[in-house]
């Protein structure tokens, strides 16, 4: 009986598909007050006065808070963000006041009465404008901000919140050795996570000092730490409880509403207060995914061997940094794409603008990075007159090569990019573009991705295993179920290790920081690896304990015993055995006396050998391993109207080992769908005054069910990562990473011109064709 490698349904699936699953905002406990955010209507302005008196007088209102009531700065890396604006507002939608009332209706009605008097400041509307000489400063106090989680290198008296670098080899040498050079300029807008469940938080401060937090977070332990730190509490006083989360995509790794809900509860004598984002608030007040402007220059020999890469990235972090400096380092770490380049110079700047602030987004910077690097590889192929697949094959990074951060790769840490590329090329067979009608063409595009975790070097995970009297097992880990199936994967690993059926493993769908072991954060596609390692250790621990009790019962040495199928048995003679339920809660002799006791298996994992990146050279060890893959699309395009559609999308990825093959495929397919959305339609829009234009799903377009390609193809290559559970590599984010690059490649083939800006709308293609005509 094997549990690993089986396509099992997710444990929570029956409740989800029948509507019985409970999410954080679904029910409001009796006596809970509601808080509503009063957002800024300006993108950049000096606050002269916030008049809350009329709102306070409204029926049902209990308290109204402003920045005056919240004297703290928040920020995961750099503490630059007041939870409620103080003195200045820096983006349209920024929380200025918080109205707390008996019910949502009263709170919303009163929120409309808060009068915000402010004087507009000059707007910084783009990263280019932000880094121009004499640009208005968004954070004049930048130099004074506390660095909560170095490395971060702010440039005081500029809008540059951080500068991350790679300096490897000697670019001058690389240029000298190059016969051809190509360069490209690329833009990717800020994007929205658009999780189905909007963010929410509920906080109650009990009179015994405990702080109960219920939220939609991906990072319950981070919430716990931050609240304890910010409000001078003992960490154990703060209890964070997280039910199933309805999609996160990185957006729920940021801590925002929890702090506001805490402030609200504190202002009303600790009564429970909840804050539930409307869709508009979720899109314009809570953080989005960063935008990016990239300049990439590659040099290569005549036969296509890369010699040098120089890259500059301006990351649009909006008004505050949140995790963007970490994203910048993740981009630096993999800045060359999965190619062998000895001479690398990379500068990634985290740039403030008067846009909604940004936080992690599925892929942690890798989808914009992949777009920039893969578009440039296609340019190089075109310049050399070489097949883009051939150019990639020639330059693929491999075991024995070093990454931009000088990490030496092995087959285990890298996987097999060559097989991924070859299989994807075979699946995508056909000319780059071929006519299918008088004014329609079919075109193909391919792109590669790679990614490591870029997680903190001391990230930890833990697992606890306990037994029920009937021998079934309870498993507790610190990962949040955001829809990725992580709990089920952990259950499969435990079942495999104990030799039992997955149905015999019972999981906690909620996370509670008081009872569940800490898991760093449910991000970076690291749950299977980290929690999996902890689960394996917990299983071993439980098995050792089972054997030591069974050894007494069976009058043998623990080393003579094995565990499986609900029994502890003599390895040499399986007929001699006791059941797990006989020994898991103490073994009773026939006379009734007992030995042993309750068996609790514990396991933990801490990242090994990871290091922070050096500030000057970027040298370091950013993650335990890589996931590599190749993606391709076929599109049908009308050359008369420029309308097009992705008809087929494919991914070949080195999964290491698929613990739940159907789950892995679904995850990758969902990623592809998201990637096609990012390629073709998504992007946060602002008007000339920095006002957010598309803060609703009516105007911020995501892929609908009826707009899917005719076929999604997923192929898994399995090169085990030796130190991962059963060899499984990270897969959670990867389905989307190269999709925008692949779509851009296909569209570029279709129209005969490079497409370098996202999203690729028919109008953008029409504009391209017009400017080409005008240039002629």
């Amino acid at each position, binding site marked *: 009986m094997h549990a690993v490698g089986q396509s099992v349904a997710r444990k929570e699936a029956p409740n989800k598909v029948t509507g019985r699953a409970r999410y954080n905002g679904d029910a409001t406990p009796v006596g809970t007050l509601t808080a509503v955010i009063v957002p800024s209507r300006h993108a950049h302005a000096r606050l002269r006065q916030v008049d809350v008196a009329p709102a306070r007088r409204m029926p049902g209102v209990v308290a109204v808070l402003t920045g005056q009531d919240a004297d703290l700065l928040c920020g995961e890396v750099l503490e630059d963000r007041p939870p409620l604006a103080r003195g200045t507002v820096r983006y349209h939608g920024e929380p200025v006041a918080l109205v707390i009332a008996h019910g*949502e*209706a*009263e*709170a*919303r*009605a009163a929120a*409309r009465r808060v009068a915000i008097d402010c004087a507009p400041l000059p707007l910084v509307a783009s990263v280019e404008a932000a880094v121009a000489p004499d640009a208005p400063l968004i954070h004049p106090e930048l130099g004074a901000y506390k660095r909560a989680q170095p490395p971060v290198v702010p440039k005081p008296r500029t809008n540059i919140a951080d500068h991350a670098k790679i300096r490897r080899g000697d670019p001058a040498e690389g240029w000298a050795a190059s016969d051809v050079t190509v360069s490209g300029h690329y833009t990717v807008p800020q994007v929205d996570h658009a999780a189905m469940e909007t963010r929410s938080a509920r906080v109650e401060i009990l009179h015994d000092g405990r702080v109960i937090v219920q939220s939609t977070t991906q990072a319950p332990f981070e919430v716990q730490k931050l609240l304890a730190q910010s409000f001078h509490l003992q960490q154990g006083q703060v209890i964070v409880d997280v039910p199933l989360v309805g999609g996160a995509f990185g957006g729920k790794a940021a801590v925002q509403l929890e702090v506001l809900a805490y402030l609200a509860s504190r202002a009303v004598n600790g009564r429970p207060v909840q804050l539930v984002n409307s869709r*508009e608030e979720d899109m314009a007040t809570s953080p989005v995914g960063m935008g990016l402007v990239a300049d990439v220059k590659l040099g290569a020999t005549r036969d296509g061997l890369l010699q040098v890469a120089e890259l500059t990235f301006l990351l649009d972090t909006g008004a505050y940094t949140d995790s963007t400096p970490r994203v910048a380092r993740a981009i630096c770490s993999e800045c060359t794409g999965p190619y062998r380049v000895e001479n690398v110079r990379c500068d990634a700047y985290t740039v403030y603008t008067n846009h909604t602030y940004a936080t992690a987004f599925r892929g942690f910077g890798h989808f914009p990075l992949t777009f920039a690097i893969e578009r440039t590889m296609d340019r190089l192929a075109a310049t050399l007159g070489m097949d883009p697949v051939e150019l990639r094959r020639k330059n693929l990074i491999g075991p024995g090569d070093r990454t931009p951060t000088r990490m030496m790769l092995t087959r285990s840490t890298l996987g097999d990019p060559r097989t991924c590329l070859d299989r994807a090329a075979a699946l995508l067979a056909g000319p780059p573009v071929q006519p299918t009608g008088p004014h329609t063409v079919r075109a193909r595009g391919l792109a590669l991705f790679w990614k490591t975790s870029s997680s903190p070097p001391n990230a930890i995970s833990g697992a606890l295993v306990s037994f029920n009297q009937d021998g079934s097992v309870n498993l507790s880990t610190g990962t949040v179920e955001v829809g990725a199936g992580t709990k089920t994967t952990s259950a499969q690993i435990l079942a495999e290790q104990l030799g039992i059926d997955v149905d015999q493993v019972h999981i906690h769908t909620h996370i509670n920081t008081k009872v569940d072991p800490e898991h760093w954060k449910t991000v970076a596609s690291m749950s299977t690896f980290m929690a999996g390692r902890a689960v394996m250790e917990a299983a071993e621990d439980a098995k050792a304990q089972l054997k030591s009790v069974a050894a007494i019962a069976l009058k043998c040495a623990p080393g003579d015993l094995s565990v499986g199928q609900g029994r502890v048995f003599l390895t040499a003679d399986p007929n001699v055995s006791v059941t797990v339920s006989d020994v898991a809660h103490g073994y009773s002799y026939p006379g009734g006396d007992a030995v042993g006791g309750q068996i609790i298996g514990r396991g933990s994992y801490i990242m090994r050998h990871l290091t922070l990146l050096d500030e000057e050279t970027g040298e370091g060890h950013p993650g335990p391993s890589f996931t590599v893959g190749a993606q391709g699309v076929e599109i049908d395009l009308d050359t*008369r*109207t420029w*309308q097009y559609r992705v008809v087929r999308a494919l991914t070949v990825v080195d999964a290491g080992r698929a613990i739940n093959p159907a789950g892995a495929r679904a995850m990758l397919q969902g990623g592809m769908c998201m990637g096609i959305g990012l390629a*073709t*339609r998504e992007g946060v*829009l602002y008007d000339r005054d920095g006002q957010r*234009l*598309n803060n609703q799903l009516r*105007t911020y*377009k995501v892929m*609908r069910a*009826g*707009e899917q390609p005719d076929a999604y193809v997923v192929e898994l290559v399995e090169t085990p990562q030796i130190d991962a559970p059963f060899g499984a590599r990270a897969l959670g984010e990867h389905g989307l990473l190269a999709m925008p690059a692949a779509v851009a490649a296909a569209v570029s083939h279709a129209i005969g011109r490079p497409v370098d800006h996202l999203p690729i*709308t*028919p*109008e953008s293609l*029409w*504009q391209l064709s017009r400017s080409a005509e005008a240039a002629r």
Partner: protein
Amino acid sequence: MIPTDFSYWRPETAEEAVAVHQQLADDGQHPVYYAGGTEVVTRTRLGQLTPGAVIDVKAIPEARRLGRDGGRWHVGAALSLADLIHDGSWPLLARVAERVADHTTRSHITLGGNLAGTIAYREAALPFWLADADVATVGPHGRRTARFHDRFDGTLALDPGELVVSLSVPDGVRQQPSYAQKATRLDYVDYPLVTIAALRGAEGQVHVALSGLKPEPFRSAALDAALIGSGSSADRAERAARHLPVTLVQDLHGTGDYRRFVAQTVLADALTALEGH
């Protein structure tokens, strides 16, 4: 959520609805008719509308009529677009309606709401604008049936409190050759860059009405005239496109210039589809 209270009324005749409307308006209640409610609810939630009372018009039988009578085909204003698609007896109307909003929303949006609402695309108006339609209303000054043409120029000219009860077209119009197409920024479900409805008359001449170019629907006799004559569809579409409004809508869905390009394309497509060349 809607944070303010309002009263709810459900009259059973058009006259009663109008009387209630007048009474509530006199009381300073800022009443609105409530048909599918999609616009009333979404605008009220955002604070763009603060009605003190809503008057549900879906219980008025004549606003839900559907069928032939006296050589004309009548359709009640309180029928949903999904009802009209399901009926399908006027293919042009069904095709246009099918591309308004998404399935869930279409099951709520009514014909009357689409014609009289604030969101000004009013795509369902296009077929009526091309046919020899009548519109029946009840207002503070009583009942009135008028030619749709005379009351609609992209916006339906209603008196305060006037209620659209039904529309009608000559029965035969429904069998006339017609064409409809909606062009969006990219998505299947979206507001239009350009929606075209075209109807071919008995003598073969093609008439068109367009939504998405101006804030409200657009028609032009000069444009229709330019569609007649010799030349390929593309040539005539290009000539006709000169009669489009000088400035076109420019928003997050698309620029005015692009809309002009798209309009010309759909005009050519309409001619090709209806004339075969």
